[in-house]
């Protein structure tokens, strides 16, 4: 194992804009970088800093690692300015991802809000490539505007091949959008859910995830089968620096994927009752 906090070199192969403010970076690591869906990596801009991201490997390009980055602050702005050929670093993978063994045989309800789709993309690749293991895959995607719906073409193609029950919604739009309008939680109303056969996984803004989890519980899905991929401020990634602590949990080490049954017991997460 590499020394603690030390990264593997990786070269930026391409940087493709997805939407306004979101780019997908394709990296070629010096050595294979393997991870499970839902785990994360610390992406290093040498001399500048690191930030955690959820990598994915697209089935069409198995030798590259893809990271979809939303421009937010200091480091993500730097990442958005990089040109192919840039030298980066990767460390990890860290944390616990989605429980694939638990998901096998279940009807999966995947929920993504905005750039949160990046957080479940590798899970999506996995379950779509193993369709015999996952009898039904429903994906609910929400975004503020149609322009912020990332990976739209790819998703539509998957849905077209009948492997994916895809439902999309946007909060606000112009006339060019003919689909649904509203919150991603509204989409839950329109789908058939067999609670005892279902598991759910989600990634997106925390208020969205909380609302969706509560709705799923209301529909009878067990709290222990609802998985949220959380975002927290992170530095070390290995449970030592304290930045990501949420009650008794270090999100970097015990998460980032955590069950609703665990989270709803944490007062800081739950908020005042």
């Amino acid at each position, binding site marked *: 194992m590499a020394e603690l906090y030390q990264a593997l070199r990786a070269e930026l192969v391409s940087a493709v804009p997805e939407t306004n403010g979101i780019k997908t970076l394709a990296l070629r690591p010096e050595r294979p970088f393997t991870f499970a869906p839902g785990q994360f990596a610390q992406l290093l801009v040498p001399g500048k*800093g690191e930030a955690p991201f959820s990598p994915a490997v697209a089935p069409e390009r198995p030798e590259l690692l893809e990271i979809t980055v939303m421009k937010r602050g200091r480091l993500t702005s730097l990442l958005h300015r990089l040109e192919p050929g840039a030298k980066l670093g990767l460390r990890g993978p860290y944390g616990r991802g989605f429980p694939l063994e638990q998901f096998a045989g279940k009807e999966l309800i995947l929920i993504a809000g905005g750039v949160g789709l990046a957080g479940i993309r590798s899970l999506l690749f996995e379950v779509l490539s193993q369709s015999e293991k996952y009898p039904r895959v429903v994906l609910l995607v929400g975004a503020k505007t149609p322009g912020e719906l990332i990976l739209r073409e790819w998703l539509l193609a998957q849905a077209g091949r009948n492997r994916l029950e895809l439902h999309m919604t946007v909060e606000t739009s112009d006339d060019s959008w003919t689909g649904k309008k509203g919150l991603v939680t509204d989409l839950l109303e329109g789908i058939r859910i067999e609670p005892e056969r279902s598991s759910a996984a989600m990634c997106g803004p925390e208020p969205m995830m909380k609302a969706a989890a509560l709705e799923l519980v209301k529909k009878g899905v067990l709290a222990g089968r609802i998985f949220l991929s959380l975002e927290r401020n992170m530095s*070390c990634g290995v449970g030592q620096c304290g930045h990501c602590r949420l009650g008794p949990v270090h999100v970097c*080490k015990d998460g980032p994927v955590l069950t609703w049954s665990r989270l709803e017991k944490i007062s800081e997460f739950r908020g005042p009752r």
Partner: protein
Amino acid sequence: MKKWESSSAPSQFFAEGSEFLSRLKQLAKSLSLYGPDQNSRLKRFRADQVRQIVFNPSRMLDPLKAIFFPARSGLGTPFADDHARGREIPARIIIGAKACDLAALELLDRIFLEGEFPDEEYRGQRQKTLIISSDCEEPSEFCFCAALGGSPYPVSGFDLNLTPAPGGWLLEAGTEKGRELLAESGFRAATEEERAHREKLRAEKSGKLQERLLAEGFKFEAAQLQKVIESATQSPLWRRLSEKCVECAACSFICPTCHCFLLSDRGHAPDFLRSRAWDSCSYRDFARLGSGANPRPRRAQRLRNRFEKKFCFFPSELGRPGCVGCGRCIEACAGGLDLRRTLKELSVG
């Protein structure tokens, strides 16, 4: 060691004050020696300076963590394939550790060494350091270890422990390293009388401290504190107290169990450098996300979070509170916050 040997081999030794100092001087010729100076700071002493070491009556001001987990340290290159790091770790002795220091170090060991990604640098520092602790002769006005179930004399976590004895020290080894050191030193075995004297002294000192703390109403139950702090998320107490906090983070930096840090990067190709520095959950941006969302935007929330970490996280994850009762944060707080009084208020409800 076979059973019958342990009963005959002495576990406690006696050294006269000057005898012990000359042994220390000898050791300091090949090892770096750290101990308290007259200002209660942890300082390095050369072999010819051992007489300047102050045999501290209670804990020094600096937390021991500063030795194993420095306030700021260079980590070398951020890349795994550059081998610029591999620094030689010097062998050291620390003298002047107290029971509370050792309890705190045990917790830090678990944070940095347990789990999938142990910190080997920290492990090396720990292994290369011999710790000589001592009983507290005079707890400071801030000390409250005994109110949290501790005692003012070390029972574990030391290589060698010193208890004052008439004319010198009673020495006890806590580890193999300590036993070897004692075996090489040529001190004589402690007499029955000296051993009895130690037990009497300990009972006296700890009784006196307990009495003093009790008189001020300082007696805390870890399980009760955990429950109260867990449920008191909305208590007005946090806001009232946080009005005094100036966010200087002195409490974190001086706390022997606070371990939060931040990694940062600088430099230009090909000489990139990474470093690690203490950080504090009292700072507003400690937990802020790139989206701007902040789990603890208010000072009151950050203050409660600090208590939650010490009295809920530590007990539930590591089996004991993350507060050892050393009182350093009370001594350091610019706003005059007194942890003991807060705990008392919380306990009373």
